[in-house]
């Protein structure tokens, strides 16, 4: 039973960014502490300091009544703090089991008892994944579960979780919640970061909200209204996105798929997308939603079938798709979304090649417009994406495709890890784009989000479209039933 308290933690990065300006936080045994804040508010930075991955510029950490100082993860571990980081740092070439056991002691690598222990832990989490598959081959959701299991397996007294549920679907989240509740019941202290206010309300005992590196709200969850939290996060009042009162009427067909398939991953799929239509894809982890988007975009070399834009076939490579005006915002922003060594302006300009020479000034102007439009929190257009907070990096990836040349927009989990204020902004933006006639396909594990803005919903399961739902009449629980939660992560069949 340990109480960990942070006092006056401040952090200034070497490039001058002030991420934290003196934050206090207490993690008490048996309690779940929710940490919220807009993208770039400083949550991950605080957590890295807690975990010993970053050194604070000022402030102290107390473990019970002792002042402790650590500047390495090893020190934090030894003090009983286990951390799940936002950008899941796993070893891609090692199996899931070995990643979970990464810092295990002893000298033997293959211990049957350790394996049994982890297998039962995984089973108790209820979202099984293959233990012996290299993590690099697992989809992002399963990797998230590996990271969660890794933190839980260490038996730490203090468990710190930075957006552990960002890549999980609703019912999979439920299982994580159950685990967290069990941990709290065992007397552990939990710090839980999330952008989902509903899960904060349901799960936590107390809440801290950060804004611009300062605590703007700290209170018992029980006495709080969700709107108050949202307002504290955004610094203004936030209204949830409502379904449009009148059904929107899509225009002429724009995109047509004829028997688009990928062996082993996606059954033949045909559909038509109309101008201004927002088509939602619902499904569980590994149901093939990303695969469908990749197949449309030509990013899967094994995919077969025809994609037609305005009746003309589109080439089956991403460069041809981009040339035709199809845009894809991929789900894994760090590995698929941006080039870390190029600046924001260069990243945003990357898909748009006109002519031989690039125009630094024009790129900067475009980037600054996108920064403005998406409210990206950055020191400037020539910052590197790696220096941004997770949610802001995601916005950069969306910004790449906001040019007028985009004819079809494919969005794969565009709001994963995005704060509540920005989330509604992005969804509004999607709707505005659609209102201007842009057809959109939206993949989201947030069924609420799908129901709110989609005109039509397709449900995928095991790599096949198994049905269609009407967003006007369906509810979240309908979708959960249809998607059939419970299939193992990473399983195709």
């Amino acid at each position: 039973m340990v109480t960990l308290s942070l006092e006056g933690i401040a952090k200034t990065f070497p490039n001058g960014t002030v991420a934290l300006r003196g934050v206090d936080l207490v993690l008490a045994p048996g309690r779940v502490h929710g940490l919220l804040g807009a993208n770039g508010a400083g949550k991950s930075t605080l957590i890295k300091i807690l975990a010993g991955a970053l050194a604070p510029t000022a402030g102290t950490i107390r473990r019970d009544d002792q002042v402790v100082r650590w500047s390495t993860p090893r020190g934090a571990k030894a003090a009983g703090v286990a951390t799940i980081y936002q950008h899941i740092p796993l070893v891609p070439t090692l199996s899931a089991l070995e990643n979970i056991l990464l810092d295990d002691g002893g000298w033997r690598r293959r211990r049957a008892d350790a394996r049994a222990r982890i297998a039962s832990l995984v089973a108790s989490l209820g979202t099984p994944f293959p233990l012996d598959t290299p993590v690099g081959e697992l989809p992002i959701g399963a990797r998230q579960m590996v990271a969660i299991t890794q933190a839980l397996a260490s038996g730490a007294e203090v468990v710190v979780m930075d957006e552990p549920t960002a890549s999980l679907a609703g019912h999979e989240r439920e299982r994580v919640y159950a685990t967290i509740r069990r941990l709290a019941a065992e007397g552990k202290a939990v710090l839980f970061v999330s952008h989902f206010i509903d899960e904060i309300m349901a799960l936590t005992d107390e809440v801290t909200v950060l804004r611009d590196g300062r605590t703007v709200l700290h209170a018992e969850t029980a006495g709080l209204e969700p709107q108050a939290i949202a307002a504290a996060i955004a610094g203004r009042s936030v209204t949830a996105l409502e379904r449009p009162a009148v059904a929107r009427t899509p225009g002429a067909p724009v995109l047509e798929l004829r028997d688009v398939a990928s062996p082993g991953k996606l059954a033949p799929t045909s559909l038509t997308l109309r101008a201004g239509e927002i088509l939602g894809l619902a499904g569980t982890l590994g149901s093939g939603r990303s695969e469908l988007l990749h197949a449309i975009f030509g990013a899967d070399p094994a995919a077969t079938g025809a994609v037609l834009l305005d009746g003309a076939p589109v080439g089956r490579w991403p460069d041809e798709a981009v040339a035709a005006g199809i845009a894809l915002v991929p789900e894994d922003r760090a590995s698929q979304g941006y080039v870390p060594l190029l600046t924001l302006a260069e990243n945003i300009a990357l898909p748009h090649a006109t002519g031989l020479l690039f125009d630094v000034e024009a790129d900067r102007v475009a980037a600054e417009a996108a920064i403005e439009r998406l409210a990206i929190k950055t020191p400037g257009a020539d910052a590197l994406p790696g220096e941004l907070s997770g949610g802001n990096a995601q916005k950069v990836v969306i910004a790449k495709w906001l040019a007028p040349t985009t004819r079809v927009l494919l969005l794969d989990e565009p709001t994963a890890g995005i704060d509540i204020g920005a989330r509604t902004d992005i969804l509004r933006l999607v709707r505005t784009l659609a209102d201007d006639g842009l057809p959109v396909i939206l993949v989201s594990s947030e069924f609420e989000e799908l129901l709110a803005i989609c005109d039509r919903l397709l449900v995928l399961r095991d790599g096949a479209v198994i049905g269609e739902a009407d967003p006007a009449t369906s509810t979240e629980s309908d979708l959960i039933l249809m998607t059939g939660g419970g299939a193992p992560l990473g399983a195709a069949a």
Partner: protein
Amino acid sequence: MTDWRRIFSLREAGVYYALLLLLGVLAALAAARGLPPYLSGQNLGNIAYQASLVGIMGVAMTVMLITGAFDLSVASVAALAAAVLVGLAGQIGFVPAAFAALAVAATIGLINGAIVQFVGINAFIVTLGTLTAVRGLVLILTDGRSLMVEQPEVLAQMLAFESTRVPLFWPLLALGAALVVLGLVKRRPFVAVGGAVLGALALVAGAGFNVAAPVVYLAGFTALLWFVLGFTVIGRRLYAVGGNPEAARLSGINVHAYRLGAFVLSSVAAGFAGVLFGCRLGAINPTALQGTELTVIAAAILGGTSLFGGAGSVVKTVVGALLLFTLTNGFNILNLGANYQGLIEGVVVVAAAAIYTLGAERRRARPTTPEVTPAEVAA
């Protein structure tokens, strides 16, 4: 539980198939030309002996590559160790000189590792620098001339260390049987098949089969590192350090220490290879082993070790080295025109690498099957 198809796939076992294929082709060609049997114990022993130095350095290089680093200086370090050995053995005796040589090698590994880890310079350029600098040291030590050991008794000791022939028929047979049993019990098909192959090899080679000592040293060193990598936590951590240093650091692994250790291991192995080299010739010339570093790295990469860290197998590296030396041995046996050797060697290297890469390609298309299903756990 064990996925046999996967374990015997081209991707996993490609380099073994490549070696067997090459041996088969060479044996057939030799038979067709009426030469003595190619797969004789003596010839196989020769190949293993010829590959032993590169094998020893390659095995350590594999560990190095697994941790995500790189060492171009091994050949120079080996030459330096040989020079130290040959230079000192006459005065202080063989064993102290050999330890001095290993200590010098370890020091250079420590310097390499410290510069890479603590100054933060790229390992490629650091070890390229030490490649040059250490070769310079060899020149200075030898004054640009060949050194030799003059004392016959020391020379005899050195020869004994290097050239003793070790009878291998019974040990090999026993080891093969043990591995087969172990593999079957522990359900590790590769171990079992490896054991069977070893046993078969012993039978093919005949009861009089013996090999030179360096082959035994190579086998021992490989077995040790195979065990460490595959069965100890140190091994797992080495893979983690190379696969994702940040993840390793965040899990509390001392990345610096493991990388530094890999540098020292690589240099010590190179030093040991240098000691064997010095013993073999009882002499050292200043240009000895020049250029061997590329062969060493080629053996590791042919064995499927990734240049980007996090993956690799020491046994396959040895097989990669055997592949390279089987090729030159085959050229010699078949008396192939020198002009064509380079072309054929290059093509065979690329083809061997293609075998497992293509195997991997085909696998990637297949979705992975889950290991733990709810049903299984519930059961």
